[in-house]
């Protein structure tokens, strides 16, 4: 009997050992899930916790440069909901915030600051919620909502984009993209917004790629002067078209024959033949260098602008016809409106391009300064003297050339129009420029999709934006 009991005890001991081992294995597996897999599970896109958590604290505000509220949180029931007083006007810049569809724009890029939750305390348990419990930090943009609103209205019902930069600092004053959407209604209208073929979610200023058309001629003019292919006096005899062997014919847009004209005149009338000729004389290498000098191959620039890279032709294998086309902003060359505004600003800022930036400063909910962004130099593509010569010619474009509709009384406006042919339909109307030319405060790029001539469509819009920006 005793022996028998001993066997039983032995067997029970084995079973106990086996089952308790299973529980120990469970403990080890739990540790694996909660430690090793933790990050993966926490940041998994289907895990709604981070978004939900953010809605239980009051986000900071997004403000324009004059402390106008562009986005703020309002308590509705248990959670905070984002409100956008300017609705569609700055929708792509400010972005949206949705439990279901995530975030975009500044809401996404500065989410960490807006929620006040920095990652350093996120793993400390309950304490992190108290540290993050007070309202998040406010983000002040460089945007001027008045300029933004003017630009938004000036575009009317057209599709297109407008960007205005302070050329001396790189601060972005306005960034309009149309069509737009109402971020207040993102949850209700998501389906329409996200499937709209006109892509209202796309920020055309940084993500729209367009042929620059004649606006690129200011850069070709600079290159020709820099490489001493021409001077201000040299004249070229311009017929209505230019034959480029073997079989390409470059035409003036209205088939005018300008006769003997110099660079300034050629820019004012936007002569394709003149700039086609200059491009051919510059040749592939120097053309490629010029685009490089102005940073068209350098991406990205600045903080969280979510830029798309320009599309440059492969210069080394470019035929003469295509090279001439590139020189008048056609062919396979595609750029963003932001880059054209930056190109413009280099002539407005004595040959320097400042880094464009959207966020001026971050303050906490009590107004204490947390972080401030100072202007930064990005590139010096050209000399102050050359910049001066180009800007004088651009003033000529507005005073007695294609850009006359951009002129403002009492203000010296410099500019260049463009009418970019494209496969989607009517030409895109372009205008780039800055004002006042003697002390530039604002450089802009305007593109109106499939709307016709730059001089008649884009230049008047630019005038309104100049007026608002210089007030």
């Amino acid at each position: 009997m005793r022996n028998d009991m001993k066997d039983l005890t032995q067997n029970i001991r084995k079973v106990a050992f086996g089952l308790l081992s299973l529980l120990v294995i469970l403990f080890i597996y739990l540790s694996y899930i909660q430690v090793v897999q933790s990050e993966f599970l926490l940041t998994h896109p289907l895990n709604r916790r981070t978004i939900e958590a953010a809605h239980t604290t009051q986000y900071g505000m997004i403000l324009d440069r004059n402390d106008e509220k562009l986005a703020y949180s309002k308590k509705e029931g248990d959670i905070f909901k984002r409100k956008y007083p300017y609705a569609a006007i700055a929708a792509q810049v400010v972005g949206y915030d949705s439990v279901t569809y995530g975030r975009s724009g500044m809401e996404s890029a500065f989410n960490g600051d807006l929620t006040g939750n920095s990652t350093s305390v996120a793993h400390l348990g309950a304490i992190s919620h108290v540290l993050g419990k007070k309202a998040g930090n406010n983000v002040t943009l460089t945007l001027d909502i008045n300029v933004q609103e003017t630009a938004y209205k000036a575009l009317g019902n057209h599709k297109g984009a407008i960007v205005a930069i302070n050329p001396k600092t790189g601060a972005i004053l306005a960034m309009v993209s149309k069509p737009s959407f109402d971020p207040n209604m993102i949850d209700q209208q998501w389906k329409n917004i996200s499937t709209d073929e006109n892509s209202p979610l796309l920020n055309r200023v940084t993500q729209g790629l367009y042929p620059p058309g004649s606006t690129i001629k200011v850069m070709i003019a600079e290159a020709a002067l820099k490489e001493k292919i021409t001077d201000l006096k040299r004249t070229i005899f311009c017929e209505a078209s230019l034959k480029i062997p073997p079989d390409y014919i470059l035409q003036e847009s209205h088939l005018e024959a300008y006769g003997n004209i110099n660079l300034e005149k050629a820019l004012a009338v936007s002569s394709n033949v003149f700039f086609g000729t200059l491009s051919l004389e510059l040749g592939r290498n120097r053309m490629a260098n010029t685009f490089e000098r102005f940073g068209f191959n350098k991406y990205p620039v600045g903080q969280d602008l979510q830029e798309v890279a320009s599309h440059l032709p492969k210069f080394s294998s470019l035929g003469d016809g295509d090279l001439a086309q590139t020189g008048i902003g056609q062919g396979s060359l595609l750029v963003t409106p932001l880059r054209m505004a930056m190109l413009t600003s280099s002539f407005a800022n004595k040959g320097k391009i400042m880094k464009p930036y959207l966020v001026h400063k971050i303050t906490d909910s009590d107004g204490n300064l947390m972080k401030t962004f100072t202007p930064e130099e990005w590139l010096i593509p050209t000399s102050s003297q050359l910049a001066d010569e180009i800007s004088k010619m651009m003033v000529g474009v507005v005073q007695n050339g294609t850009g006359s509709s951009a002129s403002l009384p009492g203000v010296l406006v410099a500019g260049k129009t463009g009418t970019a042919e494209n496969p989607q339909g009517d030409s895109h109307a372009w205008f780039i420029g800055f004002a006042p030319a003697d002390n530039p405060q604002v450089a802009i790029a305007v593109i109106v999709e499939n709307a016709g001539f730059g001089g008649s469509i884009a230049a008047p819009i630019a005038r309104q934006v100049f007026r608002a920006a210089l007030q």
Partner: protein
Amino acid sequence: MINIRQLERNLLVVAGIIMLNGILAVSLAHEFIDYQVLGAAVLIFTGFMMVNAVLCKAGHVGDPLFLPLAAVLVGLGLITILRIKPELFMLQVIWVSVGLGAFVVSVFLSRRLEQIAYFKYLCGFIGVALLLSAIVFGVDIGGNKNWIIMGPIRFQPSEFAKIFIVLFLAAYLSERRELLTLATKHYGPFVLPHPRFIAPLITVWSIGMLMFILQRDMGAALLYFGLAIIMTYMVSGRFSYVIIGMSLFLIGSIICYNFYSHIQVRVDIWLNPWSDPSGRAYQIVQSLFALGSGGIIGSGLTYGFPTMIPEVHTDFIFAAIGEEMGLMGAGAVIMFYIIMIYRAFRASMLSLMPFSMMVAAGLAVSMALQTFLIIGGVIKFFPLTGITLPFISYGGSSIVSNFILLGMLFSISEVRGYNAK
């Protein structure tokens, strides 16, 4: 050496402080202190202390760790229920009070545990009847078709059936242990016990299979089947029974897998939950999100989102603890179970009568299997089975039956006292 009831009392005080601390933490985070809730918590604490006093007065020398471990698990359960389903808190308090009463009664009755052996067939009959009643009259509540509704009372018979089945198997097996080790028949390479001997085991196995097939209750099926196999092994010491039993179960499972789509779904989402995270695997994926988001320290009570998991207050309560109290909390819960189950086996091994040894071991096995199945399911270590977490999950049947079970273990642990010299 301090008195064992004194030790029990000290530990109960700590467990009580843990419960009050957690309830206050939840209340403060909600910025609302409900004095009824606090009162109820104090009541539960007093209940545990009274049980301790009764045990002390009656001169019981049972294991002093059982009651405090139950108290700390119940406390964590109450904290979590207050956090995720406050409307069920008071009900759970009532269940725990009933459970404490059941514990005392169970301790008292189990002093004459040996006499129960005479009524083994009655026990077996009650156990089988409870299980069959769930199969026949079972009502589907929250995805598990194992509820019985009698007027205002609804309960899960399988929670109680396990106690009767353990008693029956323990009595039956301990009586026939010579038979089991000696009287065997050889069928080719297999050594099988006498058919008369394994008849009741076959019955338990068939009921397990029936529950599996008819009720989709894979958890209960595994529990009863595992119980039958392991208890047979303990008596016979023959591993071949385990292998035969497991093969039978595997064959059954494979048949079920091929014929029943819901079993396939359960297994498929276990193998690859990320193939359908928003659909069929929603629950388990949400559970993993909760555990992962909790990390080591957890989000803190009320700061997580455990309510994103469906059925979080019963089957998935462990994931809620894992999210808000992190690995620190959830890991401690597993350790509490490990210690409680270890002590149950210890009581079994120190016991003098084969019958009480088998009862204690059987109860320990059932608790271990249940804990393993549900925690394993929640953390995706094992296919998910709908089964409750002892002492923590919300539910009257679960709480009361586990207190009865604990009372029996406590009583068995008395035979050789804790500090008997």
